């Protein structure tokens, strides 16, 4: 669980080329999108989707109403990956 969390934190920083942000800066429940959190935008959502698909073989349906929720935080991404691969 912790390993997966750290992997995802690192994946976010690396795949989105974040400057001045380290994996440790991304709290488990920090909102990834919007001004109140990490501040990622829609292009980041797509980029992150590509990276997650590549690394974990996730199938992400952009029309799925749950996708927004799955991408909301590191915690949610971990749950989503575990559920998808479980």
């Amino acid at each position, binding site marked *: 669980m912790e390993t997966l969390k750290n992997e995802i934190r690192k994946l976010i920083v690396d795949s*989105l*080329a*974040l*400057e*001045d942000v380290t994996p440790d800066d991304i709290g488990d429940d920090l909102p990834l999108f919007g001004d109140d959190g990490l*501040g990622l*935008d829609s*292009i*980041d959502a*797509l*980029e992150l989707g*590509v990276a997650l*698909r*590549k690394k974990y073989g996730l199938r992400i349906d952009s029309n799925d109403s749950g996708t927004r929720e799955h991408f909301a935080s590191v915690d949610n991404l971990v749950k989503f990956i575990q559920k998808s691969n479980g």
Partner: protein
Amino acid sequence: MSASVRPESEIARARGEISFRLPLDRRVFRDDVGGCALAAAGVDFVDPMLRRRLSPLAKLTLSSAFECSKGVSGVRLVYASRHGEIARTVAMLEDIAQGEAVSPARFSLSVLNASAGLFSLISGNPEPATAISAGRSSFGYGLVEAALRFAEDASRPVLYVYSDEPLPTIYGKSHAEEGASRVALALLIGDMAETALHCSVLPTARPASAEPQFRAFLRCFEEGASNWSDGDTPWHWRRPNSQANEVPARPEKTGAGKSDLGI
């Protein structure tokens, strides 16, 4: 052409020749030999969330564009490049060839006018921006476009920015005409100009030049006049006053420092 256009900014076309006077307020040239200019080019003014997406070419282009238009609001922008963000395009094509997914972030800024769009976004400047690509003569035709924009309304400056970088190695050995380094050249065309160039595109064919077109243009500042040809259409630049080698800084808008070097 409307009557409000100042005579010195008119673009004349006669006998198949295009000629125009180019009043220059400022000139910024960055030659990124060995990555030195890029390292020195500050783009700290760009929000980090946007900055992380800038290509090396976009960083050099934007830092030159902003330095050249510092303190001048509402410039109209003309951007020219022969290849633009081709490094990104090639990287995407390589991903596709390897069966990989295309990076959305890379795709979003892969078009020729990416830097022009970024300039508008970052400066919050809603004025028109035009992007030009015209083969070997991209620099020259971009300059013609910028001069036309200025002739249209000479009361406000036009920012002209040209940038290019060597082609990715997959295209084979680079040609001298392409240039060996990443470059950005920004010119502020405005009515405070103390320096003006006379530019002509001539109707008689001449042999092709080996150097990139922007290099021939820059030689004009050192040598007073210069020529360049793509093998068909020759270009000529001439500086009426070849005393000063550097374009003076744009004077404060008091009118006191204004001089008119009519041709």
